[in-house]
């Protein structure tokens, strides 16, 4: 049967229970492990292959192969994590902690170490030269392949991580 | 005085004939102005004379051989007229209601017992008050009618223009009304009673449309039924007591004489029909087809008050008796039921009619309780009601002439479109229920009195009834204020209509301000006259407070409006979920078109409409009336 004010007892009991409200912002947030907050990059591992940029469903990533930059528009990324799956070097990570609200749109720009890039470019050029030299020979072709493979992995390993630069948003 | 009273009765009759004769509209208009001014002056003279004579009850015309014959002859003429009309429209049985009582009265007068000679005219505070109401309001309405009927004839070309006939009836009515309120002889009263009934009947049928004819016959039979009861009462009383003086009857009734019991009940019954109490309320609603001046004059301000007047007179005889209980119950119940039904009305005139019935109910209830306090309340109800209803009816009529409709929904934003008429409506409605105005004070007194009398039913009726009353009035007022895109219309109200309305508005506010004075200097003596002694009903403290409220209600909006003019305000469009069409007045509908925004008031016509509630309330009140009459008859026989 229906009763009036069925909920009153719960209400009265609640009055003597502590509130469940979290203290945020006075206390920091306790993110569970694996919480999807933002993308971090180990820039020194990146090889500027652009796979992440191509596959990002929101188009948040820009990769400049020539300048060696990796840029993410924080206000475009939907934290789907697809780039972390797609990155061949596994240098992208989904980390807990969200991007802070801002008055401007926020871009994060990461620059690969120019030295490493230089080395890489050299190697590539060498490899290309070699490839060109041995264009018609099958053996030379195989060698070129091996060189290109070698160019990828050790290149990033040695270099120091470059400091991230904040690029001021242009909102014309 | 002995000349003024016959003048007041006869002069309008002369005017009536004159109206009938003059067929030039302009000339007739001028004559009507003159006539009404003279009537008003006449009333003024009467009042002054009476005050100079000491403001005491006056008894006149002991010997009236000739007049009696004239009266009898007139009754028979009326009977013939009614019978002819009934036969013409094939409502044969109604003619019986005219023939039987007339023959009864004629028999009584010609062959009845010899009656001791007494006065035929009696003037006291109550009659003077009635004279004032009839004279002033009646005069103003005639002035208004000249302008109104001009527009009416113009707009309603489908009906024959019979203004001469209309004005004849109006003046005839005024004369009859003066006769009615000053007469003391029940025989005279009976005649004037019949005359008002028949004029009302003729006015309702003025347009001769089929609806008008049906309604007019309904009004006729109901009123004639009351007339029959009156005639029976007179005959019975004459045979039992040998006199036909109202004052004598009331006296006997108040001391509890058995002879008076039946006549008092029958007369009260007659009064209930006249005041359109349940179960007889329908005739008053039907009467709204008549041109507005007649609604204002007959069907709200004066004629229906004839019933109340009689009941007030009978009050001492009703107080504390079964008959009083019956009257109080019927009145209270009518107040409640009519108030509820008023909510569902969309037609402004019908709302006014329903509210008239309701307020008459309250007055009837006051009379039924019949103590000094309730009569005090009843008198004030009557004064305020007469002024504000007459004003509202006239105003609605004028508005209708301009807008060509009297649907309340069409009054949307009237205050911007027809400022004068809307303002007058505003004052009139405020008078009906807002705090500082008289109606409310009367309710205050009525409530107190019914508690004093321990009449619990009446307490409930008043409490719930007034709660409901405020709903439909507030609704109406709010409608006037609502913002509207409709263009400003040209106010075609004639000057004379405006004059009448303006005087009414001034009277309304004046009576409010002079309220304490009126109470102490006029109504208190009236009560002393009726009940011997009566203490002051309204405490002074309350009165002072009242005055302050009046000042606030008028001053604050005015002052703040003046201030408001000087502040910079950002005008924003209304909230319409973000899809206004760019203005306050419309939004983009589901089909992508602009939908005009018009918020209608609530009416609940399907729940509490007249159709739904009228029959049950009629049945209930009939059962109560019949039951009570049986009880009373059981006591008599």
């Amino acid at each position: 049967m229906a009763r009036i004010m069925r909920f009153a007892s719960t209400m009265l009991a609640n009055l003597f229970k502590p509130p469940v409200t979290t203290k945020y912002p006075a206390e920091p947030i306790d993110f569970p492990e694996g919480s999807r907050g933002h993308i971090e990059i180990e820039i020194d591992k990146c090889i500027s292959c652009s796979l992440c940029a191509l596959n990002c469903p929101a188009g948040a990533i820009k990769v400049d192969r020539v300048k060696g930059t990796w840029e993410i528009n924080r206000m475009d990324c939907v934290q789907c994590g697809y780039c972390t799956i797609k990155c061949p070097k596994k240098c992208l990570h989904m980390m807990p902690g969200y991007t802070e609200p801002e008055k401007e749109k926020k871009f994060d720009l990461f620059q690969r170490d120019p030295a490493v890039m230089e080395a890489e470019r050299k190697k590539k050029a060498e490899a290309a030269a070699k490839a060109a030299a041995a264009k018609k020979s099958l053996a030379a072709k195989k060698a070129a392949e091996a060189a290109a493979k070698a160019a990828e992995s050790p290149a990033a390993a040695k270099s120091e991580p470059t400091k991230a630069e904040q690029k001021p948003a242009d909102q014309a | 005085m002995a000349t003024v009273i016959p003048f007041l009765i006869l002069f309008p009759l002369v005017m009536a004939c004159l109206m009938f004769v003059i067929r030039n509209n302009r000339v007739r208009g001028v004559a009507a102005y003159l006539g009404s001014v003279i009537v008003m002056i006449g009333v003024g003279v009467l009042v002054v004379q009476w005050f100079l004579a000491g403001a005491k009850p006056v008894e006149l015309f002991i010997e009236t051989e000739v007049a009696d014959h004239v009266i009898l002859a007139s009754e028979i003429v009326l009977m013939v007229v009614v019978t002819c009309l009934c036969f013409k429209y094939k409502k044969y049985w109604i003619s019986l209601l005219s023939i039987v009582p007339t023959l009864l009265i004629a028999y009584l007068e010609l062959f009845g017992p010899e009656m001791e000679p007494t006065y035929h005219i009696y003037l006291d505070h109550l009659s003077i008050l009635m004279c004032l109401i009839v004279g002033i309001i009646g005069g103003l309405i005639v002035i208004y009618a000249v302008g109104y009927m001009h527009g009416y004839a113009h707009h309603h070309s489908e009906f024959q223009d019979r203004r001469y006939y209309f004005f004849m009836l109006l003046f005839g009515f005024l004369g009859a009304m003066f006769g009615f309120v000053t007469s003391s002889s029940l025989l005279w009263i009976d005649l004037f009673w019949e005359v008002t009934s028949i004029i009302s009947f003729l006015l309702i049928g003025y347009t001769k449309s089929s609806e008008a004819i049906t309604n007019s016959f309904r009004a006729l039979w109901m009123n004639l039924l009351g007339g029959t009861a009156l005639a029976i009462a007179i005959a019975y009383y004459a045979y039992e007591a040998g006199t036909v003086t109202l004052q004598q009857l009331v006296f006997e009734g108040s001391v509890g004489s058995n002879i008076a019991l039946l006549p008092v009940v029958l007369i009260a019954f007659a009064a209930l029909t006249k005041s359109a109490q349940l179960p007889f309320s329908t005739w008053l609603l039907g009467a709204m087809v008549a041109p507005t001046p007649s609604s204002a004059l007959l069907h709200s301000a004066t004629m229906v008050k004839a019933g109340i007047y009689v009941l007030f007179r009978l009050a001492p005889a009703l107080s504390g008796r079964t008959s009083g209980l019956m009257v109080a119950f019927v009145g209270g119940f009518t107040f409640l039921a009519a108030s509820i039904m008023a909510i569902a009305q969309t037609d402004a005139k019908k709302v006014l009619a329903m509210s008239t019935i309701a307020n008459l109910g309250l007055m009837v209830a006051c009379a039924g309780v019949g103590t000094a306090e309730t009569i005090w309340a009843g008198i004030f109800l009557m004064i305020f009601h007469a002024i504000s209803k007459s004003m509202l009816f006239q105003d609605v009529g004028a508005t209708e002439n301009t807008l060509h409709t009297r649907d309340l929904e069409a009054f949307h934003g009237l205050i911007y479109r027809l400022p004068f008429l809307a303002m007058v409506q505003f004052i009139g409605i405020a008078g009906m229920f807002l705090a500082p105005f008289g109606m409310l004070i009367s309710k205050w007194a009525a409530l107190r009195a019914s508690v004093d009398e321990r009449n619990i039913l009446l307490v409930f009726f008043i409490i719930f009834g007034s709660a409901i009353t405020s709903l439909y009035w507030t609704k109406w007022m709010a409608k006037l204020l609502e913002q509207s895109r409709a263009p400003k219309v040209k106010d075609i109200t004639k000057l004379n209509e405006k004059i009448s309305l303006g005087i009414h508005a001034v009277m309304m506010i004046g009576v409010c301000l002079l309220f304490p004075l009126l109470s102490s200097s006029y109504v208190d003596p009236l009560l002393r006259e009726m009940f011997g002694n009566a203490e002051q009903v309204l405490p002074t403290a309350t009165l002072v407070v009242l005055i302050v409220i009046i000042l606030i209600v008028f001053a604050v909006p005015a002052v703040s409006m003046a201030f408001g003019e000087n502040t910079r305000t950002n005008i924003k469009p209304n909230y319409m979920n973000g899809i206004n069409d760019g203005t306050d007045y419309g939004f983009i509908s589901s089909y992508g078109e602009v939908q005009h925004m018009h918020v209608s008031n609530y009416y609940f016509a399907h729940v509490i409409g007249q159709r739904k509630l009228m029959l049950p309330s009629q049945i209930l009140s009939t059962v109560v009336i019949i039951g009570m009459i049986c009880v009373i008859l059981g006591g008599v026989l």
Partner: protein
Amino acid sequence: MGKVKRSPWLLHYDGSSCNGCDIEVLATLTPVYDAERLGVENTGDPMQADILLITGGINEQNAPVVKQLYDQMPRPKVVVAVGICACTGGIFKDCYNIRGGVDTTIPVDIYVPGCAARPQSIIDGIIKARDLFQKRSDEHDEYEKTHHGGAGEEKING
């Protein structure tokens, strides 16, 4: 000149969000996050709101709605775009019916990113917005002082 920042009232409008951000806005008001601690009230009526919280991007049909709601709010007012969609159009910005973020239609003051924006993030956004609200209120007071006593009325402001 009062401390208006203690009473920021919200108006929440769902532009064309996927509901994710909407319900997070709502969750912000519920016991666990309880934005009312900050004096927040969710009014639902632009006339009474100080902060306009928009989730989702702008499409052809809701652009005029957003504009109108913004216009109906009395100054000083702050606009907060909640969620990636509202910031830039996000994952849907290539859809044929999407114009882009909220800033394509009305000026946005605070961007709250996230898909869906977390309640804490929205609280951060509100805190930033109310500071801005306070600043604008002070400016508004100055304006009122310098333009005092002018009669007449301002037209519906754009």
